[in-house]
Protein backbone atom coordinates (compact mmCIF):
# COMPACT_ATOMS: atom_id res chain seq x y z
CA UNK A 1 0.00 0.00 0.00
CA UNK A 2 2.52 2.46 1.26
CA UNK A 3 4.83 2.24 -1.72
CA UNK A 4 1.94 2.61 -4.13
CA UNK A 5 1.17 5.92 -2.44
CA UNK A 6 4.75 7.09 -2.55
CA UNK A 7 5.12 6.27 -6.22
CA UNK A 8 1.99 8.16 -7.24
CA UNK A 9 3.00 10.98 -4.97
CA UNK A 10 6.38 11.17 -6.63
CA UNK A 11 4.65 11.46 -9.98
CA UNK A 12 2.26 14.11 -8.78
CA UNK A 13 5.09 16.24 -7.50
CA UNK A 14 6.77 15.96 -10.82
CA UNK A 15 9.77 13.95 -9.68
CA UNK A 16 11.83 12.82 -12.71
CA UNK A 17 10.87 9.17 -12.39
CA UNK A 18 9.92 6.66 -9.72
CA UNK A 19 12.86 4.91 -8.07
CA UNK A 20 13.84 1.64 -9.67
CA UNK A 21 14.03 0.13 -6.22
CA UNK A 22 12.11 1.01 -3.07
CA UNK A 23 12.59 -0.86 0.18
CA UNK A 24 9.94 0.05 2.73
CA UNK A 25 10.53 -0.68 6.37
CA UNK A 26 11.47 -4.34 6.07
CA UNK A 27 12.14 -6.72 8.91
CA UNK A 28 14.10 -9.90 8.28
CA UNK A 29 14.15 -12.92 10.55
CA UNK A 30 16.51 -15.89 10.20
CA UNK A 31 15.48 -19.34 11.37
CA UNK A 32 12.15 -17.93 12.61
CA UNK A 33 13.81 -16.33 15.64
CA UNK A 34 16.83 -14.18 14.84
CA UNK A 35 15.65 -10.67 14.02
CA UNK A 36 18.38 -9.14 11.88
CA UNK A 37 16.80 -6.23 10.02
CA UNK A 38 14.61 -4.06 12.22
CA UNK A 39 12.92 -1.79 9.76
CA UNK A 40 15.17 -0.82 6.87
CA UNK A 41 14.02 1.59 4.21
CA UNK A 42 15.91 2.89 1.25
CA UNK A 43 15.42 3.75 -2.37
CA UNK A 44 17.55 3.75 -5.48
CA UNK A 45 16.67 6.23 -8.25
CA UNK A 46 16.96 4.97 -11.83
CA UNK A 47 20.48 5.10 -13.16
CA UNK A 48 22.17 6.00 -9.88
CA UNK A 49 24.78 4.37 -7.67
CA UNK A 50 23.63 4.18 -4.06
CA UNK A 51 25.91 2.97 -1.28
CA UNK A 52 24.85 0.85 1.67
CA UNK A 53 27.46 1.24 4.38
CA UNK A 54 28.04 -0.33 7.74
CA UNK A 55 30.34 -2.44 9.86
CA UNK A 56 30.53 -6.23 9.98
CA UNK A 57 27.19 -7.78 10.76
CA UNK A 58 25.23 -4.56 10.30
CA UNK A 59 22.90 -6.31 7.87
CA UNK A 60 24.09 -5.15 4.44
CA UNK A 61 24.21 -8.59 2.89
CA UNK A 62 20.87 -9.47 4.45
CA UNK A 63 19.31 -6.37 2.90
CA UNK A 64 20.64 -7.24 -0.55
CA UNK A 65 19.48 -10.84 -0.26
CA UNK A 66 16.03 -9.69 0.78
CA UNK A 67 15.89 -7.60 -2.40
CA UNK A 68 17.06 -10.41 -4.70
CA UNK A 69 14.86 -12.90 -2.85
CA UNK A 70 17.78 -15.18 -2.01
CA UNK A 71 16.98 -15.25 1.71
CA UNK A 72 14.73 -18.24 1.39
CA UNK A 73 17.59 -20.56 0.61
CA UNK A 74 19.22 -19.45 3.88
CA UNK A 75 16.13 -19.86 6.02
CA UNK A 76 15.63 -16.14 6.17
CA UNK A 77 12.29 -14.45 5.74
CA UNK A 78 10.98 -10.92 5.24
CA UNK A 79 8.35 -10.69 7.95
CA UNK A 80 7.33 -7.07 7.55
CA UNK A 81 7.46 -4.29 5.02
CA UNK A 82 7.66 -4.41 1.27
CA UNK A 83 10.19 -4.27 -1.54
CA UNK A 84 9.29 -2.90 -4.94
CA UNK A 85 11.59 -3.33 -7.91
CA UNK A 86 10.59 -1.62 -11.13
CA UNK A 87 6.96 -1.44 -10.02
CA UNK A 88 6.76 -5.14 -9.15
CA UNK A 89 6.42 -6.60 -5.68
CA UNK A 90 9.62 -8.58 -5.08
CA UNK A 91 8.23 -11.00 -2.50
CA UNK A 92 5.92 -12.53 -5.10
CA UNK A 93 8.76 -13.29 -7.54
CA UNK A 94 11.35 -16.07 -7.65
CA UNK A 95 15.04 -15.18 -8.05
CA UNK A 96 14.73 -16.49 -11.60
CA UNK A 97 11.89 -14.07 -12.40
CA UNK A 98 13.74 -11.21 -10.73
CA UNK A 99 16.83 -11.77 -12.86
CA UNK A 100 14.60 -11.93 -15.90
CA UNK A 101 13.11 -8.56 -14.91
CA UNK A 102 16.57 -7.06 -14.57
CA UNK A 103 17.53 -7.25 -10.90
CA UNK A 104 20.61 -9.35 -10.20
CA UNK A 105 22.91 -9.75 -7.24
CA UNK A 106 26.68 -10.13 -7.28
CA UNK A 107 27.23 -12.03 -4.10
CA UNK A 108 29.79 -11.30 -1.46
CA UNK A 109 33.04 -13.26 -1.75
CA UNK A 110 33.10 -13.50 -5.58
CA UNK A 111 31.17 -16.69 -5.95
CA UNK A 112 32.39 -17.78 -9.38
CA UNK A 113 31.75 -21.33 -10.47
CA UNK A 114 35.24 -22.68 -9.76
CA UNK A 115 35.10 -25.66 -12.12
CA UNK A 116 33.76 -23.68 -15.07
CA UNK A 117 35.99 -21.59 -17.30
CA UNK A 118 35.77 -17.81 -17.14
CA UNK A 119 33.79 -17.75 -20.38
CA UNK A 120 31.41 -20.47 -19.20
CA UNK A 121 30.90 -18.46 -16.02
CA UNK A 122 29.95 -15.43 -18.06
CA UNK A 123 27.57 -17.50 -20.15
CA UNK A 124 25.72 -18.83 -17.11
CA UNK A 125 24.76 -15.20 -16.50
CA UNK A 126 22.72 -15.34 -19.71
CA UNK A 127 20.73 -18.35 -18.49
CA UNK A 128 17.44 -16.50 -18.23
CA UNK A 129 17.71 -14.83 -21.63
CA UNK A 130 15.61 -15.89 -24.57
CA UNK A 131 16.92 -13.51 -27.21
CA UNK A 132 19.19 -15.92 -29.06
CA UNK A 133 22.86 -16.74 -29.15
CA UNK A 134 23.84 -13.90 -31.48
CA UNK A 135 22.73 -11.30 -28.94
CA UNK A 136 24.42 -13.22 -26.15
CA UNK A 137 27.64 -13.36 -28.11
CA UNK A 138 27.50 -9.63 -28.67
CA UNK A 139 27.11 -9.02 -24.96
CA UNK A 140 29.99 -11.37 -24.26
CA UNK A 141 32.18 -9.14 -26.42
CA UNK A 142 30.84 -6.13 -24.58
CA UNK A 143 31.79 -7.63 -21.22
CA UNK A 144 35.25 -8.42 -22.59
CA UNK A 145 35.59 -4.83 -23.70
CA UNK A 146 34.82 -3.65 -20.15
CA UNK A 147 37.11 -6.28 -18.63
CA UNK A 148 39.96 -6.96 -21.09
CA UNK A 149 41.62 -9.16 -18.49
CA UNK A 150 38.74 -11.58 -18.67
CA UNK A 151 39.28 -12.01 -22.38
CA UNK A 152 42.85 -13.07 -21.75
CA UNK A 153 41.71 -15.57 -19.14
CA UNK A 154 38.59 -16.75 -20.93
CA UNK A 155 39.67 -20.41 -21.13
CA UNK A 156 41.04 -20.65 -17.58
CA UNK A 157 39.06 -22.37 -14.84
CA UNK A 158 37.60 -19.58 -12.72
CA UNK A 159 38.82 -21.30 -9.57
CA UNK A 160 42.40 -20.74 -10.67
CA UNK A 161 42.14 -17.04 -11.49
CA UNK A 162 43.19 -14.23 -9.16
CA UNK A 163 40.84 -12.59 -6.69
CA UNK A 164 40.50 -9.49 -8.82
CA UNK A 165 39.78 -11.53 -11.92
CA UNK A 166 37.16 -13.51 -10.01
CA UNK A 167 35.47 -10.30 -8.90
CA UNK A 168 35.46 -9.06 -12.50
CA UNK A 169 34.12 -12.43 -13.57
CA UNK A 170 31.23 -12.20 -11.08
CA UNK A 171 30.35 -8.69 -12.20
CA UNK A 172 30.67 -9.66 -15.87
CA UNK A 173 28.48 -12.68 -15.26
CA UNK A 174 25.79 -10.44 -13.79
CA UNK A 175 26.08 -8.09 -16.78
CA UNK A 176 25.37 -10.97 -19.13
CA UNK A 177 21.80 -11.02 -17.83
CA UNK A 178 21.27 -7.49 -19.21
CA UNK A 179 20.33 -6.08 -15.83
CA UNK A 180 18.64 -2.81 -15.05
CA UNK A 181 20.05 -2.97 -11.57
CA UNK A 182 22.96 -4.75 -9.91
CA UNK A 183 23.11 -5.44 -6.18
CA UNK A 184 26.85 -5.43 -5.61
CA UNK A 185 28.00 -6.91 -2.31
CA UNK A 186 31.44 -5.85 -1.11
CA UNK A 187 33.37 -5.91 -4.35
CA UNK A 188 36.47 -4.59 -2.56
CA UNK A 189 36.70 -7.43 -0.07
CA UNK A 190 40.21 -8.80 0.18
CA UNK A 191 41.53 -7.04 -2.91
CA UNK A 192 44.58 -4.84 -3.35
CA UNK A 193 43.85 -1.08 -3.52
CA UNK A 194 44.74 -0.76 -7.22
CA UNK A 195 42.45 -3.63 -8.12
CA UNK A 196 39.65 -2.12 -6.06
CA UNK A 197 40.19 1.14 -7.86
CA UNK A 198 40.10 -0.58 -11.25
CA UNK A 199 36.85 -2.37 -10.41
CA UNK A 200 35.15 0.75 -9.08
CA UNK A 201 36.17 2.70 -12.14
CA UNK A 202 34.63 0.07 -14.38
CA UNK A 203 31.45 0.03 -12.29
CA UNK A 204 31.20 3.77 -12.59
CA UNK A 205 31.77 3.56 -16.36
CA UNK A 206 29.09 0.94 -16.68
CA UNK A 207 26.71 3.09 -14.75
CA UNK A 208 27.36 6.08 -16.98
CA UNK A 209 27.43 4.36 -20.37
CA UNK A 210 24.70 1.76 -20.01
CA UNK A 211 22.60 3.34 -17.26
CA UNK A 212 22.66 0.31 -14.95
CA UNK A 213 21.65 1.27 -11.41
CA UNK A 214 23.74 -0.02 -8.51
CA UNK A 215 23.07 -0.69 -4.89
CA UNK A 216 26.55 -1.08 -3.49
CA UNK A 217 27.13 -2.67 -0.08
CA UNK A 218 30.57 -1.74 1.20
CA UNK A 219 32.73 -1.55 4.25
CA UNK A 220 35.21 0.49 2.29
CA UNK A 221 33.31 3.67 3.06
CA UNK A 222 35.75 6.05 1.49
CA UNK A 223 35.79 4.27 -1.84
CA UNK A 224 32.04 3.77 -1.90
CA UNK A 225 31.27 7.41 -1.13
CA UNK A 226 33.62 8.53 -3.88
CA UNK A 227 31.66 6.67 -6.49
CA UNK A 228 28.11 6.74 -5.16
CA UNK A 229 25.64 9.61 -5.42
CA UNK A 230 23.79 8.80 -2.22
CA UNK A 231 24.50 6.67 0.85
CA UNK A 232 22.74 4.88 3.68
CA UNK A 233 24.48 3.87 6.88
CA UNK A 234 23.29 0.72 8.52
CA UNK A 235 23.94 -0.12 12.14
CA UNK A 236 22.55 -3.14 13.89
CA UNK A 237 19.82 -3.73 11.36
CA UNK A 238 18.64 -0.11 11.20
CA UNK A 239 19.37 2.79 8.92
CA UNK A 240 20.96 5.31 11.24
CA UNK A 241 21.83 7.95 8.70
CA UNK A 242 21.48 8.71 5.03
CA UNK A 243 22.32 11.54 2.68
CA UNK A 244 24.15 12.73 -0.40
CA UNK A 245 27.54 11.08 -0.64
CA UNK A 246 29.35 14.40 -0.43
CA UNK A 247 27.47 15.36 2.72
CA UNK A 248 28.21 12.01 4.33
CA UNK A 249 31.88 12.35 3.52
CA UNK A 250 31.99 15.65 5.39
CA UNK A 251 29.93 14.46 8.33
CA UNK A 252 31.94 14.43 11.58
CA UNK A 253 30.53 11.12 12.79
CA UNK A 254 31.04 9.37 9.49
CA UNK A 255 34.58 10.68 9.43
CA UNK A 256 35.17 9.38 12.88
CA UNK A 257 33.57 5.97 12.73
CA UNK A 258 33.83 4.97 9.11
CA UNK A 259 36.63 6.94 7.57
CA UNK A 260 38.95 6.51 10.52
CA UNK A 261 39.57 10.22 10.98
CA UNK A 262 39.29 10.15 14.76
CA UNK A 263 38.77 13.18 16.93
CA UNK A 264 37.17 11.92 20.11
CA UNK A 265 36.89 8.63 21.94
CA UNK A 266 33.25 7.72 21.63
CA UNK A 267 32.33 4.07 21.59
CA UNK A 268 29.33 3.96 19.32
CA UNK A 269 27.92 5.84 16.45
CA UNK A 270 24.77 6.21 18.52
CA UNK A 271 26.55 8.43 20.98
CA UNK A 272 27.82 10.74 18.28
CA UNK A 273 27.16 14.42 18.86
CA UNK A 274 25.60 15.00 15.49
CA UNK A 275 23.69 11.81 15.57
CA UNK A 276 19.96 12.03 15.85
CA UNK A 277 18.00 8.91 15.74
CA UNK A 278 15.45 9.15 13.03
CA UNK A 279 12.51 6.87 12.99
CA UNK A 280 11.84 6.11 9.40
CA UNK A 281 8.71 4.78 7.87
CA UNK A 282 7.04 4.04 11.14
CA UNK A 283 4.34 1.53 10.40
Amino acid at each position, binding site marked *: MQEAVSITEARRWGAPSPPILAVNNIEVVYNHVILVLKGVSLSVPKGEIVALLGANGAGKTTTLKAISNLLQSERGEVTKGSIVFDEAEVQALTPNELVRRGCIQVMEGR*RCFAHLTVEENLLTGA*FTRRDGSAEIKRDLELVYSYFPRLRERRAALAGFTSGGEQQMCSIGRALM*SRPKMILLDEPSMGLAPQVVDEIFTIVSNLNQTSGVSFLLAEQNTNMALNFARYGYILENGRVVMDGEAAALRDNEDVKEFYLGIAEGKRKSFREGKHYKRRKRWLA
Partner: protein
Amino acid sequence: MLFFVETVISGLLAGVMYSLVALGFVLIFKASGVFNFAQGVMALFAGLTLAGFLSGTVPFTHQINPALAMPPWLAILATVGVMILLAILIERLVLRHLINQEPIILFMMTLGLAYVLEGAGDLLWGSDVKVLDLGLPSGASDWLLDNYGLYVDKLEVVAAVVAAVLVAVLAIFFQRTRIGRALRAVADDHQAALSVGISLNTIWAIVWAAAGIVALVAGIMWGAKSGIQFSLSLIALKALPVLILGGFDSVPGAIVGGLIIGVGEKVAEVYLGPFVGGAIENWFAYMLALAFLLVRPEGLFGEKIIRRV
Protein backbone atom coordinates in the same frame (compact mmCIF):
# COMPACT_ATOMS: atom_id res chain seq x y z
CA MET B 1 46.05 -67.01 -20.80
CA LEU B 2 42.96 -67.19 -22.94
CA PHE B 3 40.94 -68.06 -19.90
CA PHE B 4 42.31 -65.03 -18.08
CA VAL B 5 41.35 -62.74 -20.98
CA GLU B 6 37.88 -64.22 -20.97
CA THR B 7 37.57 -63.65 -17.26
CA VAL B 8 38.66 -60.02 -17.60
CA ILE B 9 36.27 -59.38 -20.47
CA SER B 10 33.33 -60.87 -18.66
CA GLY B 11 34.31 -58.79 -15.64
CA LEU B 12 34.46 -55.64 -17.77
CA LEU B 13 31.04 -56.31 -19.18
CA ALA B 14 29.51 -56.98 -15.77
CA GLY B 15 31.23 -53.79 -14.66
CA VAL B 16 29.40 -51.82 -17.35
CA MET B 17 26.18 -52.57 -15.49
CA TYR B 18 27.57 -51.30 -12.22
CA SER B 19 28.85 -48.24 -14.02
CA LEU B 20 25.42 -47.49 -15.42
CA VAL B 21 23.75 -47.65 -12.05
CA ALA B 22 26.52 -45.64 -10.42
CA LEU B 23 26.19 -43.05 -13.17
CA GLY B 24 22.57 -42.44 -12.21
CA PHE B 25 23.69 -41.86 -8.61
CA VAL B 26 26.43 -39.46 -9.62
CA LEU B 27 24.12 -37.30 -11.74
CA ILE B 28 21.72 -36.70 -8.89
CA PHE B 29 24.42 -36.39 -6.26
CA LYS B 30 26.35 -33.81 -8.25
CA ALA B 31 23.41 -31.57 -8.92
CA SER B 32 21.57 -31.78 -5.63
CA GLY B 33 23.77 -33.49 -3.06
CA VAL B 34 21.10 -36.13 -2.61
CA PHE B 35 22.22 -39.71 -2.22
CA ASN B 36 19.51 -41.44 -4.19
CA PHE B 37 18.90 -44.81 -2.63
CA ALA B 38 16.08 -45.39 -5.10
CA GLN B 39 18.34 -45.52 -8.17
CA GLY B 40 18.24 -49.34 -8.33
CA VAL B 41 14.47 -49.39 -7.91
CA MET B 42 14.19 -46.81 -10.66
CA ALA B 43 15.96 -49.29 -12.95
CA LEU B 44 13.51 -51.97 -11.86
CA PHE B 45 10.52 -49.67 -12.37
CA ALA B 46 11.75 -48.60 -15.81
CA GLY B 47 12.33 -52.22 -16.79
CA LEU B 48 8.87 -53.28 -15.59
CA THR B 49 7.24 -50.41 -17.44
CA LEU B 50 9.09 -51.22 -20.63
CA ALA B 51 8.22 -54.93 -20.38
CA GLY B 52 4.61 -53.94 -19.72
CA PHE B 53 4.45 -51.72 -22.80
CA LEU B 54 6.13 -54.36 -24.95
CA SER B 55 3.78 -57.13 -23.97
CA GLY B 56 0.67 -54.97 -23.95
CA THR B 57 -0.06 -55.42 -20.25
CA VAL B 58 -3.01 -53.33 -19.11
CA PRO B 59 -1.86 -51.37 -16.04
CA PHE B 60 -3.39 -52.38 -12.67
CA THR B 61 -5.18 -55.39 -14.12
CA HIS B 62 -2.11 -57.53 -14.98
CA GLN B 63 -4.06 -58.73 -18.03
CA ILE B 64 -2.31 -58.90 -21.34
CA ASN B 65 -4.07 -57.42 -24.30
CA PRO B 66 -1.97 -58.18 -27.39
CA ALA B 67 -3.66 -55.35 -29.26
CA LEU B 68 -1.90 -52.91 -26.92
CA ALA B 69 1.57 -54.40 -27.43
CA MET B 70 3.93 -51.72 -28.72
CA PRO B 71 6.85 -52.19 -31.06
CA PRO B 72 10.22 -51.88 -29.24
CA TRP B 73 11.03 -48.34 -30.40
CA LEU B 74 7.63 -47.02 -29.31
CA ALA B 75 7.80 -48.87 -26.00
CA ILE B 76 11.21 -47.37 -25.28
CA LEU B 77 10.03 -43.86 -26.14
CA ALA B 78 6.93 -44.31 -23.99
CA THR B 79 9.05 -45.52 -21.08
CA VAL B 80 11.37 -42.53 -21.46
CA GLY B 81 8.24 -40.40 -21.25
CA VAL B 82 7.18 -42.17 -18.07
CA MET B 83 10.61 -41.65 -16.48
CA ILE B 84 10.52 -37.94 -17.34
CA LEU B 85 7.05 -37.64 -15.88
CA LEU B 86 8.24 -39.45 -12.77
CA ALA B 87 11.13 -36.98 -12.40
CA ILE B 88 8.76 -34.03 -12.67
CA LEU B 89 6.44 -35.57 -10.09
CA ILE B 90 9.31 -36.23 -7.69
CA GLU B 91 10.45 -32.63 -8.02
CA ARG B 92 6.96 -31.16 -7.61
CA LEU B 93 5.68 -33.38 -4.85
CA VAL B 94 8.82 -34.05 -2.84
CA LEU B 95 12.05 -32.18 -3.57
CA ARG B 96 10.42 -28.77 -3.73
CA HIS B 97 9.09 -29.19 -0.20
CA LEU B 98 12.35 -30.43 1.22
CA ILE B 99 14.50 -27.53 0.06
CA ASN B 100 17.10 -26.59 2.69
CA GLN B 101 16.70 -29.81 4.63
CA GLU B 102 19.61 -31.77 6.02
CA PRO B 103 21.16 -34.33 3.63
CA ILE B 104 20.05 -37.16 5.93
CA ILE B 105 16.41 -36.11 5.51
CA LEU B 106 16.75 -36.13 1.74
CA PHE B 107 18.35 -39.55 1.98
CA MET B 108 15.41 -40.82 4.04
CA MET B 109 13.14 -39.40 1.39
CA THR B 110 14.84 -41.54 -1.26
CA LEU B 111 14.46 -44.60 0.98
CA GLY B 112 10.74 -43.93 1.05
CA LEU B 113 10.74 -43.30 -2.66
CA ALA B 114 12.35 -46.70 -3.24
CA TYR B 115 9.44 -48.42 -1.48
CA VAL B 116 6.81 -46.31 -3.21
CA LEU B 117 8.29 -47.08 -6.63
CA GLU B 118 8.62 -50.76 -5.88
CA GLY B 119 4.99 -50.88 -4.80
CA ALA B 120 3.90 -48.86 -7.79
CA GLY B 121 5.77 -51.23 -10.12
CA ASP B 122 3.97 -54.20 -8.54
CA LEU B 123 0.59 -52.55 -8.66
CA LEU B 124 0.90 -51.41 -12.26
CA TRP B 125 2.60 -54.35 -13.87
CA GLY B 126 2.45 -57.31 -11.48
CA SER B 127 5.26 -58.91 -9.55
CA ASP B 128 6.12 -61.93 -11.69
CA VAL B 129 9.47 -62.18 -13.46
CA LYS B 130 9.21 -60.68 -16.93
CA VAL B 131 11.20 -61.56 -19.97
CA LEU B 132 12.36 -58.55 -21.85
CA ASP B 133 12.61 -59.30 -25.54
CA LEU B 134 13.77 -56.32 -27.52
CA GLY B 135 15.34 -58.48 -30.20
CA LEU B 136 18.85 -57.61 -29.03
CA PRO B 137 21.53 -59.99 -30.32
CA SER B 138 22.61 -62.65 -27.86
CA GLY B 139 24.66 -65.78 -27.69
CA ALA B 140 28.38 -66.15 -28.34
CA SER B 141 30.02 -63.90 -30.85
CA ASP B 142 31.02 -66.28 -33.66
CA TRP B 143 33.60 -63.93 -35.03
CA LEU B 144 35.55 -63.73 -31.77
CA LEU B 145 35.13 -67.45 -31.18
CA ASP B 146 36.45 -68.40 -34.63
CA ASN B 147 39.32 -65.95 -34.84
CA TYR B 148 40.54 -65.77 -31.27
CA GLY B 149 38.85 -68.66 -29.56
CA LEU B 150 37.25 -66.18 -27.12
CA TYR B 151 33.78 -66.75 -25.74
CA VAL B 152 31.99 -63.40 -25.43
CA ASP B 153 28.27 -62.85 -25.18
CA LYS B 154 27.00 -60.49 -27.89
CA LEU B 155 24.43 -59.01 -25.56
CA GLU B 156 27.14 -57.84 -23.23
CA VAL B 157 29.01 -56.25 -26.10
CA VAL B 158 25.84 -54.40 -27.03
CA ALA B 159 25.48 -53.30 -23.43
CA ALA B 160 29.02 -51.96 -23.46
CA VAL B 161 28.47 -50.06 -26.69
CA VAL B 162 25.21 -48.58 -25.47
CA ALA B 163 26.84 -47.53 -22.21
CA ALA B 164 29.69 -45.88 -24.11
CA VAL B 165 27.26 -43.98 -26.32
CA LEU B 166 25.23 -42.91 -23.30
CA VAL B 167 28.32 -41.57 -21.55
CA ALA B 168 29.40 -39.71 -24.67
CA VAL B 169 25.96 -38.13 -25.05
CA LEU B 170 25.94 -37.12 -21.38
CA ALA B 171 29.44 -35.67 -21.68
CA ILE B 172 28.43 -33.55 -24.66
CA PHE B 173 25.26 -32.50 -22.89
CA PHE B 174 27.21 -31.42 -19.81
CA GLN B 175 30.02 -29.66 -21.65
CA ARG B 176 28.31 -28.07 -24.60
CA THR B 177 24.75 -27.12 -23.83
CA ARG B 178 23.22 -24.26 -21.91
CA ILE B 179 21.40 -26.60 -19.53
CA GLY B 180 24.52 -28.72 -19.06
CA ARG B 181 26.46 -25.62 -18.12
CA ALA B 182 23.75 -24.66 -15.65
CA LEU B 183 23.88 -28.15 -14.17
CA ARG B 184 27.61 -27.84 -13.57
CA ALA B 185 27.10 -24.38 -12.12
CA VAL B 186 24.55 -25.73 -9.66
CA ALA B 187 26.92 -28.55 -8.73
CA ASP B 188 29.64 -25.96 -8.00
CA ASP B 189 27.68 -23.43 -5.97
CA HIS B 190 23.92 -23.65 -5.86
CA GLN B 191 23.44 -20.29 -4.12
CA ALA B 192 25.46 -18.49 -6.76
CA ALA B 193 23.54 -20.38 -9.42
CA LEU B 194 20.30 -19.19 -7.87
CA SER B 195 21.64 -15.63 -7.86
CA VAL B 196 22.15 -15.63 -11.63
CA GLY B 197 18.61 -16.82 -12.15
CA ILE B 198 19.14 -20.54 -12.65
CA SER B 199 16.01 -22.23 -11.38
CA LEU B 200 16.99 -25.10 -9.09
CA ASN B 201 13.59 -26.74 -9.50
CA THR B 202 14.04 -27.04 -13.25
CA ILE B 203 17.57 -28.35 -12.87
CA TRP B 204 16.50 -30.98 -10.36
CA ALA B 205 13.69 -32.20 -12.59
CA ILE B 206 16.20 -32.46 -15.44
CA VAL B 207 18.80 -34.46 -13.51
CA TRP B 208 16.18 -36.80 -12.12
CA ALA B 209 14.89 -37.33 -15.63
CA ALA B 210 18.45 -38.00 -16.86
CA ALA B 211 18.99 -40.43 -13.98
CA GLY B 212 15.68 -42.08 -14.88
CA ILE B 213 16.80 -42.58 -18.46
CA VAL B 214 20.14 -43.99 -17.33
CA ALA B 215 18.15 -46.31 -15.05
CA LEU B 216 16.07 -47.40 -18.02
CA VAL B 217 19.19 -48.31 -19.98
CA ALA B 218 20.50 -50.27 -17.00
CA GLY B 219 17.13 -51.96 -16.64
CA ILE B 220 17.09 -52.95 -20.32
CA MET B 221 20.59 -54.41 -20.25
CA TRP B 222 20.12 -56.31 -17.04
CA GLY B 223 16.61 -57.39 -17.95
CA ALA B 224 17.64 -58.70 -21.36
CA LYS B 225 20.19 -60.93 -19.64
CA SER B 226 18.28 -62.25 -16.65
CA GLY B 227 14.73 -60.99 -16.91
CA ILE B 228 13.10 -58.13 -15.06
CA GLN B 229 12.75 -59.11 -11.46
CA PHE B 230 13.06 -57.67 -8.01
CA SER B 231 16.77 -58.50 -7.71
CA LEU B 232 17.39 -55.72 -10.21
CA SER B 233 16.81 -53.20 -7.46
CA LEU B 234 19.63 -54.77 -5.49
CA ILE B 235 22.29 -53.80 -7.99
CA ALA B 236 22.03 -50.45 -6.26
CA LEU B 237 23.94 -52.02 -3.41
CA LYS B 238 26.77 -52.86 -5.77
CA ALA B 239 26.85 -49.27 -6.91
CA LEU B 240 27.88 -48.12 -3.46
CA PRO B 241 31.40 -49.59 -3.57
CA VAL B 242 31.67 -48.33 -7.14
CA LEU B 243 30.94 -44.83 -5.92
CA ILE B 244 33.41 -45.06 -3.08
CA LEU B 245 36.04 -46.19 -5.54
CA GLY B 246 35.28 -43.67 -8.24
CA GLY B 247 34.16 -40.70 -6.16
CA PHE B 248 30.55 -39.69 -5.60
CA ASP B 249 30.67 -36.67 -7.86
CA SER B 250 32.65 -37.96 -10.81
CA VAL B 251 31.10 -39.29 -14.01
CA PRO B 252 34.37 -40.85 -15.26
CA GLY B 253 34.84 -42.18 -11.72
CA ALA B 254 31.53 -44.04 -11.92
CA ILE B 255 32.56 -45.62 -15.22
CA VAL B 256 36.09 -46.61 -14.22
CA GLY B 257 34.99 -47.64 -10.72
CA GLY B 258 32.33 -49.92 -12.16
CA LEU B 259 34.81 -51.55 -14.51
CA ILE B 260 37.41 -52.06 -11.77
CA ILE B 261 34.86 -53.65 -9.47
CA GLY B 262 33.47 -55.83 -12.26
CA VAL B 263 36.91 -57.13 -13.27
CA GLY B 264 38.22 -57.36 -9.71
CA GLU B 265 35.25 -59.47 -8.67
CA LYS B 266 35.55 -61.94 -11.49
CA VAL B 267 39.32 -62.29 -11.30
CA ALA B 268 39.23 -62.70 -7.53
CA GLU B 269 36.48 -65.28 -7.77
CA VAL B 270 38.36 -67.34 -10.31
CA TYR B 271 41.88 -67.10 -8.95
CA LEU B 272 41.44 -66.52 -5.21
CA GLY B 273 38.08 -68.21 -4.76
CA PRO B 274 39.40 -71.74 -4.51
CA PHE B 275 41.67 -70.82 -1.59
CA VAL B 276 38.95 -69.33 0.59
CA GLY B 277 36.06 -71.52 -0.39
CA GLY B 278 34.56 -69.36 -3.16
CA ALA B 279 31.76 -66.77 -3.09
CA ILE B 280 34.27 -63.94 -3.14
CA GLU B 281 32.15 -62.20 -5.73
CA ASN B 282 29.62 -61.31 -3.06
CA TRP B 283 31.89 -59.36 -0.82
CA PHE B 284 34.96 -58.50 -2.87
CA ALA B 285 33.56 -55.12 -3.95
CA TYR B 286 32.90 -54.07 -0.37
CA MET B 287 36.39 -55.10 0.80
CA LEU B 288 37.92 -53.13 -2.04
CA ALA B 289 35.77 -50.12 -1.17
CA LEU B 290 36.75 -50.37 2.48
CA ALA B 291 40.43 -50.49 1.61
CA PHE B 292 39.90 -47.47 -0.61
CA LEU B 293 38.15 -45.52 2.10
CA LEU B 294 41.25 -45.86 4.23
CA VAL B 295 43.66 -44.80 1.52
CA ARG B 296 41.79 -42.33 -0.66
CA PRO B 297 38.46 -41.28 0.80
CA GLU B 298 37.61 -38.87 -2.01
CA GLY B 299 37.75 -41.72 -4.53
CA LEU B 300 39.85 -42.09 -7.64
CA PHE B 301 38.27 -39.20 -9.48
CA GLY B 302 36.54 -37.27 -6.72
CA GLU B 303 36.35 -33.66 -7.82
CA LYS B 304 39.51 -31.91 -6.83
CA ILE B 305 38.76 -29.15 -4.43
CA ILE B 306 40.10 -25.93 -5.84
CA ARG B 307 41.57 -23.88 -3.04
CA ARG B 308 42.62 -20.39 -3.87
CA VAL B 309 42.22 -17.13 -2.13
